[in-house]
Protein backbone atom coordinates (compact mmCIF):
# COMPACT_ATOMS: atom_id res chain seq x y z
CA UNK A 1 0.00 0.00 0.00
CA UNK A 2 1.37 3.42 -0.91
CA UNK A 3 1.37 6.14 1.68
CA UNK A 4 -1.46 7.89 -0.13
CA UNK A 5 -3.58 4.72 -0.17
CA UNK A 6 -2.94 4.26 3.52
CA UNK A 7 -3.89 7.89 4.21
CA UNK A 8 -7.15 7.42 2.31
CA UNK A 9 -7.85 4.25 4.27
CA UNK A 10 -7.17 5.98 7.60
CA UNK A 11 -9.32 8.92 6.56
CA UNK A 12 -12.17 6.52 5.76
CA UNK A 13 -11.83 4.84 9.17
CA UNK A 14 -11.79 8.19 11.01
CA UNK A 15 -14.83 9.46 9.09
CA UNK A 16 -16.73 6.23 9.74
CA UNK A 17 -15.93 6.34 13.46
CA UNK A 18 -17.18 9.93 13.70
CA UNK A 19 -20.37 8.99 11.84
CA UNK A 20 -20.88 5.98 14.14
CA UNK A 21 -20.84 8.46 17.01
CA UNK A 22 -23.70 10.35 15.36
CA UNK A 23 -21.62 13.30 14.10
CA UNK A 24 -20.81 14.62 10.64
CA UNK A 25 -17.04 14.47 10.04
CA UNK A 26 -15.19 17.64 9.04
CA UNK A 27 -12.64 17.51 6.21
CA UNK A 28 -9.89 15.14 7.34
CA UNK A 29 -6.35 16.09 6.28
CA UNK A 30 -2.86 14.93 7.25
CA UNK A 31 -2.78 17.79 9.79
CA UNK A 32 -6.09 16.94 11.51
CA UNK A 33 -5.60 16.47 15.27
CA UNK A 34 -7.26 13.17 16.20
CA UNK A 35 -8.13 13.49 19.90
CA UNK A 36 -9.41 16.43 21.92
CA UNK A 37 -9.81 18.78 18.96
CA UNK A 38 -13.58 18.50 18.72
CA UNK A 39 -13.77 16.46 15.49
CA UNK A 40 -15.91 13.86 17.24
CA UNK A 41 -13.39 11.07 17.68
CA UNK A 42 -12.82 9.67 21.19
CA UNK A 43 -10.33 7.21 22.72
CA UNK A 44 -12.60 4.22 22.00
CA UNK A 45 -12.94 5.23 18.33
CA UNK A 46 -9.19 5.65 18.04
CA UNK A 47 -8.56 2.32 19.84
CA UNK A 48 -10.79 0.57 17.28
CA UNK A 49 -9.05 2.28 14.34
CA UNK A 50 -5.64 1.19 15.67
CA UNK A 51 -6.80 -2.45 15.91
CA UNK A 52 -8.17 -2.30 12.35
CA UNK A 53 -4.91 -0.78 11.05
CA UNK A 54 -2.86 -3.49 12.76
CA UNK A 55 -4.98 -6.14 11.04
CA UNK A 56 -4.90 -4.38 7.66
CA UNK A 57 -1.17 -3.55 7.52
CA UNK A 58 0.36 -6.27 9.70
CA UNK A 59 2.39 -3.51 11.37
CA UNK A 60 2.34 -3.22 15.19
CA UNK A 61 3.88 0.16 16.04
CA UNK A 62 2.73 -0.13 19.66
CA UNK A 63 4.07 -3.59 20.46
CA UNK A 64 6.53 -1.98 22.90
CA UNK A 65 3.85 0.27 24.43
CA UNK A 66 2.13 3.52 23.49
CA UNK A 67 4.00 5.85 21.12
CA UNK A 68 2.70 9.41 21.12
CA UNK A 69 1.12 10.79 17.96
CA UNK A 70 -1.18 13.74 17.40
CA UNK A 71 -2.29 14.08 13.79
CA UNK A 72 -3.75 11.81 11.12
CA UNK A 73 -0.45 12.14 9.22
CA UNK A 74 1.56 10.95 12.23
CA UNK A 75 -0.75 7.94 12.61
CA UNK A 76 -0.32 7.09 8.91
CA UNK A 77 3.48 7.32 9.30
CA UNK A 78 3.38 4.88 12.24
CA UNK A 79 1.62 2.25 10.10
CA UNK A 80 3.31 2.93 6.78
CA UNK A 81 5.66 0.14 5.81
CA UNK A 82 8.22 0.96 3.12
CA UNK A 83 7.85 -1.50 0.24
Amino acid at each position, binding site marked *: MTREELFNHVRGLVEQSIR*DGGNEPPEITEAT*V*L*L*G*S*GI*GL*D*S*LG*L*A*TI*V*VELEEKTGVSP*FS*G*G*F*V*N*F*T*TVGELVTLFHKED
Partner: protein
Amino acid sequence: MASQLALVGPDHRQTQEDLAEISGRFIAPSGKLLAIDANDPARVIAALLAPELREADLILVRDWAPLDEAALTNLGVAEAMDENGIVRIISERKATATGGIWLQTSGTTGPPKLVRHDRERLQGRIRQPITEGPARWMLTYHPGSFAGLQVLLTAFPSGQPIVYADRAKLASLSNFPADELPTCISATPTYWRAMLSALGATVQQFPIEIATLGGEIADQPVLDLLAATFPTAKITHVYAATELGVILSVSDRLAGFPESWLDAEREIKVTVRDGMLFVQSPFAAGQTVRAGSSVDAEFAGNWTGTGDLVEIRDGRVFFMGREDSVINVGGQKVFAEDIEQILQRHPAVRDIRIYAVPNPILGTAVAADVVLEGDDLAGLKTFAREHLSRLQIPVKWNVLDTLEMNAAGKKTRKATP
Protein backbone atom coordinates in the same frame (compact mmCIF):
# COMPACT_ATOMS: atom_id res chain seq x y z
CA MET B 1 -4.82 35.52 51.73
CA ALA B 2 -8.07 35.64 49.82
CA SER B 3 -8.94 32.31 48.31
CA GLN B 4 -9.15 32.33 44.51
CA LEU B 5 -10.99 29.04 44.48
CA ALA B 6 -12.95 28.70 41.29
CA LEU B 7 -13.62 26.22 38.53
CA VAL B 8 -11.98 27.28 35.29
CA GLY B 9 -11.71 25.82 31.81
CA PRO B 10 -11.19 26.88 28.23
CA ASP B 11 -14.82 27.91 27.87
CA HIS B 12 -16.22 28.24 31.40
CA ARG B 13 -15.44 29.99 34.67
CA GLN B 14 -17.32 29.65 37.96
CA THR B 15 -16.21 31.92 40.79
CA GLN B 16 -16.39 31.19 44.48
CA GLU B 17 -19.60 33.27 44.62
CA ASP B 18 -21.15 31.18 41.83
CA LEU B 19 -20.27 28.02 43.77
CA ALA B 20 -21.66 29.41 47.05
CA GLU B 21 -24.92 30.19 45.30
CA ILE B 22 -25.35 26.52 44.34
CA SER B 23 -24.78 25.16 47.84
CA GLY B 24 -27.02 27.90 49.33
CA ARG B 25 -30.03 26.22 47.70
CA PHE B 26 -30.26 23.54 50.39
CA ILE B 27 -32.75 24.48 53.09
CA ALA B 28 -32.10 22.39 56.19
CA PRO B 29 -28.69 20.87 55.64
CA SER B 30 -26.95 20.36 58.97
CA GLY B 31 -27.05 16.83 60.33
CA LYS B 32 -29.05 15.60 57.35
CA LEU B 33 -28.44 13.21 54.50
CA LEU B 34 -28.35 14.99 51.16
CA ALA B 35 -28.22 13.49 47.66
CA ILE B 36 -26.52 15.58 44.98
CA ASP B 37 -26.27 14.94 41.27
CA ALA B 38 -22.50 14.58 40.83
CA ASN B 39 -22.24 14.84 37.06
CA ASP B 40 -21.32 18.53 37.15
CA PRO B 41 -18.02 19.32 38.90
CA ALA B 42 -19.26 22.78 39.99
CA ARG B 43 -22.12 21.19 41.94
CA VAL B 44 -19.82 18.72 43.71
CA ILE B 45 -17.26 21.40 44.57
CA ALA B 46 -20.04 23.71 45.84
CA ALA B 47 -21.43 20.99 48.11
CA LEU B 48 -18.02 19.98 49.46
CA LEU B 49 -16.96 23.56 50.18
CA ALA B 50 -20.13 24.88 51.84
CA PRO B 51 -19.49 25.41 55.57
CA GLU B 52 -23.18 24.77 56.29
CA LEU B 53 -22.90 21.30 54.72
CA ARG B 54 -19.85 20.21 56.77
CA GLU B 55 -22.02 18.23 59.20
CA ALA B 56 -24.25 16.81 56.48
CA ASP B 57 -23.76 13.44 54.80
CA LEU B 58 -23.47 13.88 51.06
CA ILE B 59 -24.43 11.19 48.55
CA LEU B 60 -22.66 11.94 45.27
CA VAL B 61 -25.02 10.49 42.68
CA ARG B 62 -23.74 9.53 39.24
CA ASP B 63 -26.79 7.49 38.25
CA TRP B 64 -30.26 8.18 39.68
CA ALA B 65 -31.85 5.03 38.23
CA PRO B 66 -31.26 2.84 41.33
CA LEU B 67 -31.89 5.82 43.64
CA ASP B 68 -35.53 6.46 42.89
CA GLU B 69 -37.88 8.25 45.30
CA ALA B 70 -38.49 5.07 47.31
CA ALA B 71 -34.80 4.26 47.67
CA LEU B 72 -34.01 7.84 48.73
CA THR B 73 -36.80 7.76 51.33
CA ASN B 74 -35.60 4.39 52.59
CA LEU B 75 -32.11 5.76 53.11
CA GLY B 76 -33.51 8.72 55.04
CA VAL B 77 -32.38 11.33 52.52
CA ALA B 78 -33.66 14.77 53.54
CA GLU B 79 -33.13 16.72 50.31
CA ALA B 80 -31.95 15.88 46.80
CA MET B 81 -30.42 18.20 44.18
CA ASP B 82 -31.01 17.05 40.61
CA GLU B 83 -28.94 17.63 37.47
CA ASN B 84 -30.51 21.06 37.01
CA GLY B 85 -29.61 22.17 40.53
CA ILE B 86 -33.22 21.94 41.71
CA VAL B 87 -33.61 20.85 45.35
CA ARG B 88 -36.48 18.55 46.33
CA ILE B 89 -37.44 17.70 49.89
CA ILE B 90 -37.61 13.91 50.17
CA SER B 91 -38.18 13.10 53.81
CA GLU B 92 -38.58 14.85 57.14
CA ARG B 93 -36.98 11.88 58.81
CA LYS B 94 -33.85 12.66 60.75
CA ALA B 95 -30.83 10.75 59.55
CA THR B 96 -27.80 10.80 61.81
CA ALA B 97 -25.37 12.54 59.52
CA THR B 98 -21.94 13.43 60.80
CA GLY B 99 -19.94 14.48 57.77
CA GLY B 100 -19.81 11.43 55.55
CA ILE B 101 -19.40 11.20 51.82
CA TRP B 102 -21.23 8.41 50.01
CA LEU B 103 -20.02 7.28 46.62
CA GLN B 104 -21.78 5.10 44.08
CA THR B 105 -19.67 2.21 42.89
CA SER B 106 -19.77 1.17 39.28
CA GLY B 107 -21.28 -2.02 40.70
CA THR B 108 -21.16 -5.58 39.44
CA THR B 109 -24.43 -7.23 38.62
CA GLY B 110 -27.18 -6.41 41.08
CA PRO B 111 -28.07 -2.95 42.37
CA PRO B 112 -25.15 -0.51 42.58
CA LYS B 113 -23.73 0.00 46.03
CA LEU B 114 -23.22 3.12 48.05
CA VAL B 115 -19.95 3.32 49.93
CA ARG B 116 -19.61 5.68 52.89
CA HIS B 117 -16.31 7.34 53.75
CA ASP B 118 -15.78 9.60 56.73
CA ARG B 119 -14.80 13.00 55.40
CA GLU B 120 -12.44 13.91 58.26
CA ARG B 121 -10.61 10.61 57.84
CA LEU B 122 -10.31 11.07 54.09
CA GLN B 123 -9.05 14.61 54.58
CA GLY B 124 -6.62 13.50 57.28
CA ARG B 125 -5.04 10.94 54.95
CA ILE B 126 -4.25 13.47 52.25
CA ARG B 127 -0.65 14.61 52.09
CA GLN B 128 -0.21 17.97 50.41
CA PRO B 129 2.27 17.68 47.55
CA ILE B 130 5.35 19.84 47.80
CA THR B 131 5.43 22.22 44.85
CA GLU B 132 7.51 25.28 44.07
CA GLY B 133 4.68 27.31 42.61
CA PRO B 134 0.99 27.33 43.53
CA ALA B 135 -0.64 23.89 43.31
CA ARG B 136 -3.26 24.29 40.60
CA TRP B 137 -5.04 20.97 40.16
CA MET B 138 -6.78 19.67 37.10
CA LEU B 139 -9.83 17.50 37.61
CA THR B 140 -9.80 14.71 35.03
CA TYR B 141 -11.83 12.05 36.87
CA HIS B 142 -15.57 11.97 37.31
CA PRO B 143 -16.33 14.39 40.17
CA GLY B 144 -18.46 11.71 41.85
CA SER B 145 -15.73 9.04 41.84
CA PHE B 146 -13.29 8.21 44.64
CA ALA B 147 -10.36 9.51 42.56
CA GLY B 148 -12.22 12.71 41.70
CA LEU B 149 -13.05 13.28 45.37
CA GLN B 150 -9.39 12.73 46.31
CA VAL B 151 -8.29 15.36 43.79
CA LEU B 152 -10.86 17.89 45.02
CA LEU B 153 -10.03 17.39 48.71
CA THR B 154 -6.33 17.71 47.88
CA ALA B 155 -6.89 20.83 45.78
CA PHE B 156 -9.12 22.83 48.16
CA PRO B 157 -6.49 23.90 50.73
CA SER B 158 -4.37 25.55 47.99
CA GLY B 159 -7.20 28.01 47.37
CA GLN B 160 -6.23 27.94 43.69
CA PRO B 161 -8.62 27.62 40.75
CA ILE B 162 -9.39 24.03 39.74
CA VAL B 163 -9.00 23.37 36.03
CA TYR B 164 -11.61 21.30 34.25
CA ALA B 165 -11.72 20.72 30.49
CA ASP B 166 -14.17 18.74 28.44
CA ARG B 167 -12.33 15.63 27.23
CA ALA B 168 -13.38 16.30 23.64
CA LYS B 169 -11.76 19.75 23.74
CA LEU B 170 -8.48 18.99 25.48
CA ALA B 171 -6.51 20.52 22.58
CA SER B 172 -7.93 23.95 23.45
CA LEU B 173 -5.98 23.89 26.73
CA SER B 174 -3.00 25.09 24.68
CA ASN B 175 -4.75 28.49 24.37
CA PHE B 176 -5.22 28.71 28.13
CA PRO B 177 -3.51 31.63 29.94
CA ALA B 178 -0.11 30.46 31.19
CA ASP B 179 -0.79 31.56 34.78
CA GLU B 180 -3.91 29.38 34.91
CA LEU B 181 -2.45 26.20 33.45
CA PRO B 182 -2.55 23.26 35.86
CA THR B 183 0.61 22.36 37.78
CA CYS B 184 -0.76 19.13 39.29
CA ILE B 185 -2.63 16.53 37.26
CA SER B 186 -3.94 13.16 38.33
CA ALA B 187 -5.43 11.07 35.53
CA THR B 188 -5.85 7.56 34.21
CA PRO B 189 -3.11 6.34 31.83
CA THR B 190 -5.75 6.51 29.07
CA TYR B 191 -6.49 10.15 29.87
CA TRP B 192 -2.77 11.00 29.95
CA ARG B 193 -2.26 9.37 26.55
CA ALA B 194 -5.26 11.25 25.13
CA MET B 195 -4.03 14.53 26.59
CA LEU B 196 -0.46 14.13 25.35
CA SER B 197 -1.80 13.14 21.94
CA ALA B 198 -4.22 16.10 21.81
CA LEU B 199 -1.66 18.70 22.85
CA GLY B 200 1.41 17.38 21.01
CA ALA B 201 4.64 19.22 21.75
CA THR B 202 2.84 22.20 23.38
CA VAL B 203 2.19 20.10 26.48
CA GLN B 204 5.88 20.38 27.37
CA GLN B 205 5.29 24.05 28.18
CA PHE B 206 2.80 23.08 30.88
CA PRO B 207 4.31 23.83 34.31
CA ILE B 208 3.61 20.29 35.57
CA GLU B 209 5.15 19.58 38.99
CA ILE B 210 2.95 16.64 40.01
CA ALA B 211 1.88 13.97 37.52
CA THR B 212 -0.19 11.17 39.04
CA LEU B 213 -1.70 8.09 37.42
CA GLY B 214 -4.60 6.08 38.80
CA GLY B 215 -7.60 3.95 37.92
CA GLU B 216 -5.76 1.60 35.58
CA ILE B 217 -2.52 -0.35 35.52
CA ALA B 218 0.35 2.06 34.89
CA ASP B 219 2.78 0.21 32.61
CA GLN B 220 6.42 1.17 32.09
CA PRO B 221 5.87 2.78 28.64
CA VAL B 222 3.30 5.27 29.99
CA LEU B 223 5.53 6.08 32.98
CA ASP B 224 8.49 6.59 30.62
CA LEU B 225 6.37 8.79 28.35
CA LEU B 226 5.42 11.04 31.28
CA ALA B 227 9.01 11.14 32.55
CA ALA B 228 10.25 12.18 29.09
CA THR B 229 7.52 14.82 28.71
CA PHE B 230 7.84 16.30 32.23
CA PRO B 231 11.44 15.55 33.29
CA THR B 232 11.30 17.50 36.57
CA ALA B 233 7.82 16.40 37.69
CA LYS B 234 7.13 14.05 40.57
CA ILE B 235 5.51 11.05 38.89
CA THR B 236 3.38 8.79 41.06
CA HIS B 237 1.07 5.93 40.29
CA VAL B 238 -1.66 5.25 42.81
CA TYR B 239 -3.57 2.06 43.46
CA ALA B 240 -6.94 2.71 45.10
CA ALA B 241 -10.48 1.37 45.19
CA THR B 242 -13.76 3.04 46.11
CA GLU B 243 -14.36 0.61 48.96
CA LEU B 244 -10.77 0.38 50.20
CA GLY B 245 -9.45 3.91 49.71
CA VAL B 246 -5.88 4.64 48.65
CA ILE B 247 -3.81 1.48 49.07
CA LEU B 248 -0.45 2.07 47.37
CA SER B 249 1.34 5.12 46.09
CA VAL B 250 4.53 4.51 44.07
CA SER B 251 6.89 7.35 43.11
CA ASP B 252 10.05 5.65 41.79
CA ARG B 253 8.91 5.91 38.15
CA LEU B 254 8.84 2.12 37.86
CA ALA B 255 5.79 -0.01 37.10
CA GLY B 256 4.46 -2.22 39.91
CA PHE B 257 5.61 -1.84 43.50
CA PRO B 258 8.48 -3.23 45.64
CA GLU B 259 8.02 -6.83 46.80
CA SER B 260 9.26 -5.75 50.26
CA TRP B 261 5.92 -3.94 50.79
CA LEU B 262 4.13 -7.31 50.91
CA ASP B 263 3.44 -8.61 54.42
CA ALA B 264 5.29 -5.61 55.89
CA GLU B 265 4.29 -3.85 59.10
CA ARG B 266 2.55 -0.93 57.45
CA GLU B 267 -0.60 1.00 58.29
CA ILE B 268 -2.22 -0.48 55.20
CA LYS B 269 -1.25 -4.13 54.85
CA VAL B 270 -1.03 -5.95 51.54
CA THR B 271 -0.46 -9.62 50.83
CA VAL B 272 -0.80 -12.05 47.94
CA ARG B 273 -3.02 -15.15 48.15
CA ASP B 274 -3.40 -17.44 45.14
CA GLY B 275 -2.04 -14.71 42.91
CA MET B 276 -4.56 -12.10 44.07
CA LEU B 277 -3.77 -8.96 46.03
CA PHE B 278 -5.48 -8.74 49.44
CA VAL B 279 -5.66 -5.56 51.51
CA GLN B 280 -6.29 -4.70 55.14
CA SER B 281 -6.76 -1.00 55.71
CA PRO B 282 -8.09 1.07 58.62
CA PHE B 283 -8.97 3.74 56.06
CA ALA B 284 -11.35 1.58 54.04
CA ALA B 285 -15.00 2.57 53.75
CA GLY B 286 -16.93 2.39 57.01
CA GLN B 287 -19.96 0.79 55.46
CA THR B 288 -21.48 -0.23 52.17
CA VAL B 289 -25.16 -0.14 51.42
CA ARG B 290 -27.09 -1.50 48.51
CA ALA B 291 -29.72 1.01 47.46
CA GLY B 292 -32.83 0.42 49.56
CA SER B 293 -31.37 -2.18 51.89
CA SER B 294 -29.29 -2.38 55.02
CA VAL B 295 -25.55 -2.41 55.56
CA ASP B 296 -23.91 -4.86 53.18
CA ALA B 297 -20.32 -5.09 54.35
CA GLU B 298 -17.71 -3.45 56.51
CA PHE B 299 -14.32 -3.08 54.87
CA ALA B 300 -12.37 -1.11 57.46
CA GLY B 301 -9.86 -3.36 59.25
CA ASN B 302 -10.87 -6.54 57.43
CA TRP B 303 -8.77 -8.45 54.90
CA THR B 304 -10.41 -7.93 51.53
CA GLY B 305 -9.64 -9.49 48.15
CA THR B 306 -9.18 -6.84 45.49
CA GLY B 307 -9.91 -9.03 42.45
CA ASP B 308 -6.61 -7.82 40.97
CA LEU B 309 -4.10 -10.48 39.96
CA VAL B 310 -0.41 -9.84 40.56
CA GLU B 311 2.87 -11.44 39.53
CA ILE B 312 6.19 -11.14 41.36
CA ARG B 313 9.29 -10.68 39.19
CA ASP B 314 12.76 -9.43 40.19
CA GLY B 315 11.68 -8.03 43.56
CA ARG B 316 8.73 -6.16 42.08
CA VAL B 317 4.98 -6.87 42.22
CA PHE B 318 3.19 -6.23 38.91
CA PHE B 319 -0.56 -5.94 38.29
CA MET B 320 -1.67 -8.40 35.61
CA GLY B 321 -5.41 -7.75 35.26
CA ARG B 322 -8.58 -9.01 36.87
CA GLU B 323 -9.40 -12.36 38.39
CA ASP B 324 -13.10 -12.00 37.55
CA SER B 325 -14.70 -10.97 34.27
CA VAL B 326 -14.31 -7.26 34.97
CA ILE B 327 -12.58 -5.45 32.11
CA ASN B 328 -10.96 -2.11 32.93
CA VAL B 329 -11.44 -0.02 29.79
CA GLY B 330 -9.62 3.27 30.14
CA GLY B 331 -10.28 3.34 33.88
CA GLN B 332 -13.97 2.34 33.65
CA LYS B 333 -15.12 -1.11 34.67
CA VAL B 334 -17.24 -3.12 32.27
CA PHE B 335 -18.52 -6.66 32.78
CA ALA B 336 -17.97 -9.39 30.20
CA GLU B 337 -21.21 -11.21 31.12
CA ASP B 338 -23.30 -8.05 30.71
CA ILE B 339 -21.96 -7.57 27.19
CA GLU B 340 -22.44 -11.25 26.29
CA GLN B 341 -26.05 -11.18 27.51
CA ILE B 342 -26.90 -8.13 25.44
CA LEU B 343 -25.21 -9.33 22.23
CA GLN B 344 -26.68 -12.82 22.62
CA ARG B 345 -30.06 -11.24 21.87
CA HIS B 346 -29.03 -10.53 18.27
CA PRO B 347 -30.43 -13.25 15.95
CA ALA B 348 -27.09 -13.73 14.13
CA VAL B 349 -25.29 -14.71 17.35
CA ARG B 350 -25.09 -18.45 17.95
CA ASP B 351 -22.45 -18.13 20.65
CA ILE B 352 -20.29 -15.30 21.93
CA ARG B 353 -17.38 -14.83 24.26
CA ILE B 354 -16.23 -11.42 25.56
CA TYR B 355 -12.76 -10.91 26.98
CA ALA B 356 -10.07 -8.30 27.58
CA VAL B 357 -7.32 -7.54 25.07
CA PRO B 358 -4.38 -5.19 25.58
CA ASN B 359 -4.81 -1.96 23.64
CA PRO B 360 -2.26 0.86 23.20
CA ILE B 361 -4.89 3.61 23.53
CA LEU B 362 -7.18 2.23 26.26
CA GLY B 363 -4.82 -0.01 28.25
CA THR B 364 -7.25 -2.87 27.91
CA ALA B 365 -10.26 -3.06 25.64
CA VAL B 366 -13.11 -5.44 24.88
CA ALA B 367 -12.79 -8.17 22.26
CA ALA B 368 -15.41 -10.63 21.02
CA ASP B 369 -15.14 -14.17 19.67
CA VAL B 370 -18.39 -14.91 17.93
CA VAL B 371 -19.99 -17.91 16.24
CA LEU B 372 -22.43 -16.54 13.67
CA GLU B 373 -25.71 -17.80 12.30
CA GLY B 374 -25.19 -16.61 8.73
CA ASP B 375 -22.58 -13.97 7.98
CA ASP B 376 -24.04 -10.63 9.11
CA LEU B 377 -21.15 -9.36 11.21
CA ALA B 378 -21.84 -5.79 10.04
CA GLY B 379 -25.39 -6.03 11.40
CA LEU B 380 -24.10 -7.31 14.72
CA LYS B 381 -21.63 -4.44 14.95
CA THR B 382 -24.44 -1.94 14.38
CA PHE B 383 -26.53 -3.73 17.02
CA ALA B 384 -23.58 -3.46 19.43
CA ARG B 385 -23.27 0.29 18.85
CA GLU B 386 -26.99 0.74 19.48
CA HIS B 387 -27.30 -1.44 22.59
CA LEU B 388 -23.98 -1.18 24.42
CA SER B 389 -22.46 1.76 26.23
CA ARG B 390 -19.46 3.26 24.45
CA LEU B 391 -16.74 1.45 26.40
CA GLN B 392 -18.57 -1.91 26.21
CA ILE B 393 -18.29 -1.99 22.41
CA PRO B 394 -15.69 -4.53 21.25
CA VAL B 395 -12.73 -3.02 19.40
CA LYS B 396 -11.92 -6.42 17.87
CA TRP B 397 -14.25 -9.11 16.46
CA ASN B 398 -13.15 -12.66 15.63
CA VAL B 399 -15.58 -14.85 13.74
CA LEU B 400 -15.04 -18.50 14.72
CA ASP B 401 -16.65 -21.85 13.87
CA THR B 402 -16.90 -22.85 17.51
CA LEU B 403 -15.96 -21.49 20.94
CA GLU B 404 -13.37 -23.23 23.03
CA MET B 405 -14.68 -24.69 26.31
CA ASN B 406 -12.65 -25.51 29.39
CA ALA B 407 -12.81 -28.82 31.27
CA ALA B 408 -15.84 -27.65 33.27
CA GLY B 409 -17.71 -26.92 30.05
CA LYS B 410 -17.45 -23.19 30.58
CA LYS B 411 -16.32 -20.72 28.00
CA THR B 412 -12.72 -19.80 28.67
CA ARG B 413 -12.13 -16.09 29.03
CA LYS B 414 -8.45 -16.05 28.22
CA ALA B 415 -7.38 -13.76 25.40
CA THR B 416 -6.39 -15.54 22.21
CA PRO B 417 -2.84 -14.52 21.34
